[in-house]
């Protein structure tokens, strides 16, 4: 019995570890400037905990194998433990864990403690059940005023843009987000109804959109292409369908796009969606 259990534990451990390290199922290729550091931190962590996991399980299996009761046996070892050991492993784990915790902050700090760098491209994100709306400032770079009371779904004015506001004249809106490559992007995240979550796996980035708040976050994408955008916070019935795309465009192409008035903007985005294929997984 003891041997069997030991072997099973070891097999399960091997299986669990290998399902990670075959890398058959792994993160999609990253496309953001902070992702490299984040992936490294993840790798370090997963290796540390992987080793600890294996060590703990192997040890467990070993005890189970070695110390099973055999007829001939005398009694078990009579001990109430060793304070020295306790102190040692408390300190060791404390160092490892706190170490990981501290290392784990750098990416976070770079994303959340610093304001978006000057000259970053701004997009206003207005989520709703179950659709994404992205509000672009147009070439004047100033967002037109929005107000919930102006929302008019029939007129496709989902974000309540105030047409009378001069700044709004050149604003564009779309359900697809188009951002420039290699240029900091600042998102102003809002929600019309319940909590949603802006999430593009390739960005290694996630942020709730909380109604009543306009949360500002920033990142830099460094790979052109088309990526799937998902909602990662339960927002109701069609949560699983709240999908859109993120286009990361070469600076020039992006500039041109942003210069277009709403109608051409729309059709241009459709073209771009067709132009850029999804990454192959």
């Amino acid at each position: 019995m003891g041997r069997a259990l030991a072997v099973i534990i070891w097999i399960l451990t091997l299986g669990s570890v290998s399902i990670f390290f075959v890398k058959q199922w792994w993160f999609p290729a990253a496309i953001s400037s902070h992702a490299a550091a984040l992936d490294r931190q993840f790798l370090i962590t997963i290796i540390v905990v992987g080793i600890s996991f294996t060590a703990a399980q192997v040890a467990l299996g070993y005890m189970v194998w070695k110390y099973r009761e055999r007829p001939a046996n005398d009694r078990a070892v009579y001990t109430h433990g060793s304070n020295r050991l306790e102190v040692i492993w408390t300190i060791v784990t404390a160092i490892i864990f706190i170490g990981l915790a501290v290392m784990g902050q750098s990416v976070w700090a770079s994303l959340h403690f610093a304001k978006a760098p000057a000259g970053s491209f701004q997009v206003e994100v207005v989520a709703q059940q179950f659709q994404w709306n992205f509000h672009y400032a147009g070439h004047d770079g100033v967002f037109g005023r929005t107000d919930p009371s102006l929302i008019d779904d029939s007129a496709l004015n989902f974000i309540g843009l105030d047409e009378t506001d001069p700044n709004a004249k050149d604003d564009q809106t779309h359900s697809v987000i188009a951002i420039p490559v290699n240029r900091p992007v600042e998102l102003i995240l809002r929600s019309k109804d319940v909590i949603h979550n802006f999430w593009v796996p390739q960005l290694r980035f996630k942020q709730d959109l909380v109604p009543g708040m306009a949360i500002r976050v920033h990142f830099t994408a460094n790979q052109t292409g088309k990526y799937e955008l998902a909602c990662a916070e339960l927002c109701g019935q069609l949560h699983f369908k709240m999908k859109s795309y993120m286009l990361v465009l070469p600076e020039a192409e992006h500039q041109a796009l942003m210069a277009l008035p709403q109608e051409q903007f729309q059709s241009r985005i459709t073209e771009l969606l067709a132009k850029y294929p999804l990454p192959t997984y």
Partner: protein
Amino acid sequence: MSAHVEEEHFAGSNKLFTSIWVWLVVLTLVEIGLAYKPMALHLMLTILLGLSIIKAALIVAYFMHLKFERLSLILTIVPMLVVCICLLFVFFPDSFRSAGLRYEFKEQPPAAEEH
């Protein structure tokens, strides 16, 4: 029967309790007086909370008799409560944050029924 363990007699004279009561009333009057002193809200808040904590302490110590209980009981009850209440203060950064990040728009006055 453990009744013979707790001393039946209840420490503290009615005179003592009355004087505590006087203190409580006085502190209350002070609080009311403060209400009409124009001063910064946070200052007012700190003073009021300070006074309230004193009052609470008086009630717990004398009326609720904790002062006359064993130290071990005090050490069991008070710290865990204090710690948890202090922890609740961790909410505050987010209160100010959500105020700061509030999405501003023109609210129209509610159609509150009139009387």
